[in-house]
């Protein structure tokens, strides 16, 4: 145990944790919304994120953005990549819903089967990038880590006085971006008419459909919204880490789902709280002990929280109360 | 479309009484007290949820061997009271005692082991299991075989003459090595379950999945399953819901015969005619308070009850 290590680098570790946690939180939204409405763990959601990271790479490659591009190009490329990643991820999420879940819903299959088709879709998507596309186009596709050009160069924007912590532009973008998207989504679900429909179905699907809420449309909507959020997460991830890989989604998806459960699944604000909490705990624990156990800490935290608060930190609700 | 026709084996009280004499000792239960003594006591129970008073100082008792009706208009607190009695809620004030023991906070399966069974207003069978298996799950509540005992048949008991197999080698083996408790329990449970299905009149479809049974059969199956746990007190939650008059008539006979087996019966019902026809005593709730208690005749004459039910003429019909 090395508490000195943590104390000495506390400021830096906290910033790291928040950065990581913001990305978890954005991906967690997809899990939490789908769960809130369908009581289903969308196993393919991690791959929705993965598709987003590849889309970013694709956009940069096509428009030729590199780390030495001018300011206008940087902003343009980043925005374009963001838009493309959101679209691609949302499209993937929707396709998964259409192919893997909707037919089962029509047949009234048990919950376990949804999980299996989700896992199946996840494998297919992983393999599309790891094998199928490589077979047809060769690199960069395949089972290796791929670098993404650091279009947005990391620069220190300001230094927090006193603790002497340098805050870079990328971190600001990630944290602010994540929080803005979360607030926007929260406002959408709580204020808009469509959002009301989502909450109604989450509370009580039968009553909601009696009240004229189109359940199929609500389901499509949550997949699209969750996918778009994963797309945002994908862009922010590439900004910070500059890489992607065919199976990059798995661990992030697992962590994001853990974050969703931690915060209280089905609860949008819970995803944020859970994501940040998990990110910070991971970084702190890695500083104290050993970073090769990072994934273990995440699950230990999950089990401990669930033992004492089975509904997560903020409790479960997309609507208000869940039966 | 569910088939609502009446099961033929139980179309009237007398008819069933005639053919039913066969194996009643198989399903009769042993009771541990005298008829008429207090079995379950609802002792000045108040139940609040936040600011809402769901039950207000409700006080009554169920006596061994009787059929007690608990009635009241919608929202009167019948189901809340029922849930408190079966351990789902803990009373804010007051006590609920079964055979003198307080039951608040006891886990549902322990309450069953104490001797209380119930049916559900919205049928909750195990849909993918056959009718017989559903009842056998109930019988299992009284069985003792453990996982290890089932796996290795390790717990042997000396069989009685009646339990010995008929054929030669098996008989000798059983005499020397005994029979595993699991085997005996399984055999007894199956026979008892079959007898119970016959008792409620649905034995002809014993091997059908519960989900495929017609509605009336499902209701009866729930009763059989509850009876299988050998409860001293069986609570029926709106057993006549969705029944036509002929079926209700049958049900009344069935409830009386359940009492005759040694069970004490609590019936929660909407249907006044059924309750007045079958119960020994009735407790009437309205807005969470008890407004009347007495024999069916007394309750039917009680102006408070009449007033309470005027709002719901359909139910009194």
């Amino acid at each position, binding site marked *: 145990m090395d508490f000195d290590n943590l104390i000495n680098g506390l400021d830096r570790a906290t910033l790291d944790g928040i950065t990581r946690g913001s990305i978890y939180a954005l991906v967690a939204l997809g899990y939490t919304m789908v769960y809130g409405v369908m009581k289903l763990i969308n196993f393919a959601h991690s791959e929705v994120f993965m598709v987003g990271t590849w889309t970013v790479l694709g956009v940069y490659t096509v428009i030729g953005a590199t780390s030495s591009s001018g300011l206008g190009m940087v902003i343009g490329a980043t925005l374009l990549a963001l838009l493309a990643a959101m679209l691609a991820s949302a499209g993937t999420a929707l396709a998964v819903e259409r192919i893997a879940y909707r037919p089962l819903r029509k047949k009234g299959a048990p919950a*376990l089967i949804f999980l299996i088709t989700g896992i199946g879709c996840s494998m297919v998507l992983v393999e599309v990038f790891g094998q199928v596309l490589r077979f047809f186009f060769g690199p960069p596709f395949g089972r290796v880590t791929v670098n993404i050009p650091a279009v947005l160069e990391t620069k220190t924007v300001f230094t927090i006085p006193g603790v002497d912590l340098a805050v870079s532009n990328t971190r600001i973008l990630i944290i602010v971006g994540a929080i803005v998207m979360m607030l926007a989504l929260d406002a959408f679900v709580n204020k808009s008419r469509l959002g009301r429909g989502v909450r109604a179905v989450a509370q009580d699907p039968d009553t909601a459909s009696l009240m004229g809420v189109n359940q199929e449309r609500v389901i499509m909507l949550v997949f699209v919204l969750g996918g778009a959020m994963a797309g945002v997460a994908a862009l922010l991830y590439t900004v910070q880490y500059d890489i992607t890989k065919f199976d990059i989604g798995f661990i992030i998806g697992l962590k994001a789902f853990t974050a969703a459960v931690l915060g209280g699944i089905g609860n949008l604000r819970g995803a944020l709280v859970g994501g940040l909490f998990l990110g910070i705990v991971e970084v702190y624990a890695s500083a104290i002990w050993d970073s090769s156990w990072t994934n273990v800490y995440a699950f230990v935290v*999950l089990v401990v929280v669930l033992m004492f608060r089975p509904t997560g930190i903020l409790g479960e609700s997309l609507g208000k109360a869940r039966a | 479309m569910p088939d609502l026709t009446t099961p033929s084996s139980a179309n009237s009280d007398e008819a069933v009484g005639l053919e039913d004499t066969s194996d009643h000792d198989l399903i009769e239960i042993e009771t541990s007290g005298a008829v008429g003594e207090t079995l379950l006591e609802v002792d000045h129970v108040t139940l609040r949820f936040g600011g809402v008073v769901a039950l207000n100082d409700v006080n009554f008792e169920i006596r061994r061997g009787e059929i007690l009706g608990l009635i009241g208009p919608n929202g009167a607190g019948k189901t809340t009271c029922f849930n408190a009695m079966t351990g789902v809620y803990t009373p804010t004030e007051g006590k609920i005692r079964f055979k003198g023991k307080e039951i608040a906070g006891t886990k549902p399966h322990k309450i069953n082991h104490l001797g209380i069974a119930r049916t559900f207003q919205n049928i909750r069978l195990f849909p993918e299991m056959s009718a017989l298996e559903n009842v056998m799950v109930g019988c299992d*509540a009284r069985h003792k075989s453990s*996982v290890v005992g089932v796996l290795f048949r390790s717990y042997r008991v000396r069989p009685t003459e009646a339990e010995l197999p008929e054929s030669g080698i098996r008989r000798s083996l059983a005499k020397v090595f005994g029979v595993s408790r699991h085997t005996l329990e399984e055999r007894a449970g199956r026979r008892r379950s079959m007898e119970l299905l016959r008792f409620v009149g649905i*034995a002809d479809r014993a091997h059908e999945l519960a989900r495929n049974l017609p509605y009336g059969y499902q209701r009866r199956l729930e009763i059989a399953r509850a009876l299988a746990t050998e409860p001293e007190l069986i609570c029926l939650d709106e057993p006549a819901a969705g029944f036509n008059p002929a079926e209700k008539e049958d049900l009344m006979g069935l409830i009386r015969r359940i009492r005759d087996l040694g069970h004490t019966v609590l019936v929660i019902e909407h249907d006044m005619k059924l309750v007045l026809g079958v119960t020994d005593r009735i407790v009437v709730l309205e807005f969470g308070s008890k407004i009347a208690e007495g024999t069916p005749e007394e309750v039917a004459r009680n102006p408070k009850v009449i007033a309470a039910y005027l709002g719901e003429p359909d139910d009194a019909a």
Partner: protein
Amino acid sequence: MSQILDAYRGLRLGDRWDGAPTVVRWAVMLLVIAFAFYLPYLNILPFAYIRTDLTSSGSDWASVLFLVVVYMIVAVGLNVVIGLAGLLDLGYVGFYALGAYSIALFGSTNSPVVQAMQSKFGLSEEWAVPFAVCIPIAITMSLIAGVFLGAPTLRLRGDYLAIVTLGFGEIIRITARNLDNVTNGAAGITQVPVPPGPEIDGRAFFNTIDAERWYWLALTILILIIWLARRLEHSRVGRAWLAIREDEDAASVMGVAGFKFKLWAFAIGATLGGLAGLLFGSKQQYVEPNAFMVNLSFLFVAMVVIGGSGNIFGALLGAFLLTYLPERFREFVDWRPFAFGVALVLVMILRPQGLVPSRRRAREFEDRRHEAEEAAADA
């Protein structure tokens, strides 16, 4: 495809099976078992086409059979957890790894644990815990892991169980990878012991060449396990599991101690997983963390569900298909995961109940016809 299968089900093979006299059923069963034991030598055309070593790049046929049977043991164990008790366990690979690592840690002279024991107690460098002692150790370790994992988590809702078990599987693998001074870390442990046996042709009875002996050993264990699993299924324990799966609240009102039986299901599943892992590790004579990736857990779940959740024979079929097919078509090894994913989605969408759905109605007692007739006479 689903129409064909429905037609096949229309034949009511199962009902015919139940209707057959005991002698016939025993004879058929013995024939099937005998055939299973003969499989490694299968050489009659056209059946020999199922062999996996027809081309020089193919995998050793007996080894494939061995793996199929090991995964069948896994499937039977997981079927108890998922199919009967309805608990979604996504970390089954953790128990499998525990079994394999138990025998490696205690039985191999290459293991740091054994080496520590040697120096502590002044034993010779050849010494290791005997194989026969390793078996109970492996089983106990998986059992304890199952109980430890299940006790806090089985009270949670089912979906949480899925994620917690998934995490458990990863924790076991990461632990095996990181604890260098216990497990040799990523390098793995070599010289995992094999069961004792007489030497034949100058080789140990269980060696790396004569894979069919491993297959026979595993097959014998599998048959034993199926026999025991069916005992459980047709008892109050099996009924309690089904009742919990169907409606846990109603089951507990009917006196079923839900938590106790769920924990039993979990523990039994864990034990069988550990046992399968033990066989696997012993045959490989080498264990390493990367053999226990999380994808294997998904494969295990898929076996149970594709075959038909809740039906032992469905689980066996699932295990066979998902192990055998990839080995038979090894030339497409890179396409395996992709094909697997596509197959999962397709099969589940076309046939959500699995290939051989549990014939719950017919899995009854020997005298069920008799009882039905009796009841009909009464009615």
